[in-house]
């Protein structure tokens, strides 16, 4: 799996991912001799950044943090590479001075601690060899303001018992919209749906896969649905109710993107 972003600091390095969900401060947040995270509020507290592909949303705190990062790199205690959602000047400066490859513009929620990552600071890409991308379609059916969600059966391969749109894997080079229509036919028996919107691809992390979701919105004239073995229950809900259901990852985001794109 290859994620593309923006090159900030050149060089290529490989390392095991150490991922944080929080902004990171290097001055006072990381011990400048050992490279161990000391910030009591960090989800990486006690971890050593040395040699790791350090993943976090963005930097924060004092500009002296740039010097700390430089110093860590100089004594071999710095991260092998850095991946950010949105790099700011403190981390960018430290990475460049310390010659640490840095790529930003990456959705850091797709990377997990323990992944092996190759960070290419020239091309602006992050390669994660152990993780594959699975493209999927998710189709939302709409009728008079309500949207169809279905509860996945115990016989499907993933996300059993969770609420979802009508979805399925994309095979080979087939067109996503054709696959979406086919899934509609198979899972609901509906054939005359009218395509209203398609959203941008949304990615979400599974165990060793990243799902690349292609979202679609169809209008239908009736609410009658004939389920197949893949789902056990169907409900027509108002869009805002989706947040309250146990759903597959990022279902609300996928729906919001097609409703906004109309």
């Amino acid at each position, binding site marked *: 799996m290859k994620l593309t972003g*923006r090159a*900030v*600091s*050149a060089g290529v390095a490989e390392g095991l991912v150490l991922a944080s969900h929080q902004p990171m401060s290097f*001055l006072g947040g990381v011990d*400048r001799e050992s490279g161990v995270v000391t910030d009591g509020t960090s989800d990486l507290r006690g971890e050593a950044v040395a040699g790791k592909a350090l993943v976090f949303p963005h930097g924060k705190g004092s*500009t*002296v943090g*740039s*010097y*700390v990062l*430089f*110093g860590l790199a*100089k004594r071999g205690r710095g991260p092998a590479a850095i991946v950010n959602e949105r*790099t*700011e*000047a*403190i981390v*960018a*400066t430290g990475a*460049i*001075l310390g010659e640490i490859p840095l790529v930003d513009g990456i959705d850091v929620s797709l990377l997990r601690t323990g992944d092996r990552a190759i960070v290419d600071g020239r091309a602006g890409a992050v390669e994660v060899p152990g993780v594959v991308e699975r493209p999927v379609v998710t189709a939302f059916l709409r009728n008079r303001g309500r949207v169809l969600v279905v509860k996945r059966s115990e016989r499907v391969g993933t996300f059993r018992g969770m609420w979802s749109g009508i979805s399925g894997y994309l095979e080979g080079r087939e067109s996503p919209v054709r696959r979406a229509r086919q899934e509609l036919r198979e899972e609901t028996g509906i054939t005359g749906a009218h395509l209203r919107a398609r959203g941008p691809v949304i990615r979400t992390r599974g165990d060793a896969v990243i799902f690349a979701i292609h979202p679609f919105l169809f209008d239908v004239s009736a609410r009658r649905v004939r389920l197949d073995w893949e789902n056990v229950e169907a409900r027509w809900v108002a869009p805002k109710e989706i947040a309250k259901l146990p759903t597959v990852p990022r279902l609300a985001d996928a729906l919001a993107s097609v409703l906004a794109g109309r």
Partner: protein
Amino acid sequence: MRLSQRQKQLRDHGTAAERTAMRLLIALGEIYEADRLIPITSAHVAGASYKMVGDPGLEFIEDFAAGARVVVPTTVNPLGMDLDRWREQKITHDFAAKQERIARAYRRMGVRESFSCTPYLIGNRPRFGDHVAWAESSAVCFANSVLGARTNREGGPAALAASVAGVTPNYGFHLDEGRRATMIVDVRARLRGHRFSLAGLLAGRRASGGVPYFRGVRGTETDLKWLCASIASTGDTAMFHIERGTPEWRRARLKGLPRTRITERDLAEIEREFTTGEDADIIGLGSPQLSSEELVEISRLMEKNRPRIPVWVFTSRPVRDEARRAVDTIESFGGKVFVDTCLEVTMIENVSKTVATPSGKGAVYLPTLCGQKVVLGDVARLFRRYAA
């Protein structure tokens, strides 16, 4: 970002320091969506006080200095101590030794040993429309607002890189669009002296990073120095306009801007808010460093009200030498005039727990950087209050 042949040459085949500098400037340019690197006429770098940058900063500066040479006139911010009189400041030998190494490293690069936060008072004074790369938030604000020069709020390494490469990324305050007002501030109070600091504290907070446009303000260059220092301390403000007062006020574009008002009551309130102490151990004057006119004023105040607590005055070497008589007077009444350093980047915590100061910037940073309580007030009032 588009790079010229010469810039590419410097990036790929320059000295190690030039290559690092170019890499840094290009990356920052990409982050801030600059279209190119533009030549600068001067630089002012920060990150010189050992107290502020510590061992990580010392290590970087020595490393970088080994092969670097500035190509434009470059001044540098205050150190953590007076290079001659650090013992009187109760600075330890270890601190002093490391501080001297930082000063030496800058000297080796060809940086002028200004050790000043007021470079514009001592010969690094950009002209209207000059592009420069300055760190030190108060000086940045002064260059943009009062002089009409153009600079972003650079970090220490970025300003240093610009001084070595002679260029800076073209974005933000280098562009006309970046210099437009974002808020109108109607001042309904008489601003003079210390009140410029108070108004700055308020406006910085309300404009939070934007460009305030003041109405009802008239001040000397010294007054505006204090306004700059305060406004840059409570917000990220790098520039303001004053109607009929600063060089670019006609270009501010006011249509549709939000408004705010500063009243006498607001000023009194903000002074109370930043007054966290009661009995000061010391009067601290600086942040930014004083001008020669201000040194003369202080010498007169001290003659009139001989203080019962120590008075530490911070200025730059050239200004001290220019105002020798005033300095001698201040010292003869027990004051100390230190150079090369300033109020909160030195170790004032070695001698004090509560500082009395008229500086709004000091009131912001003394608590966090020096663990001090603050008595914020007009300088004449402070001298009367602490008279023997």
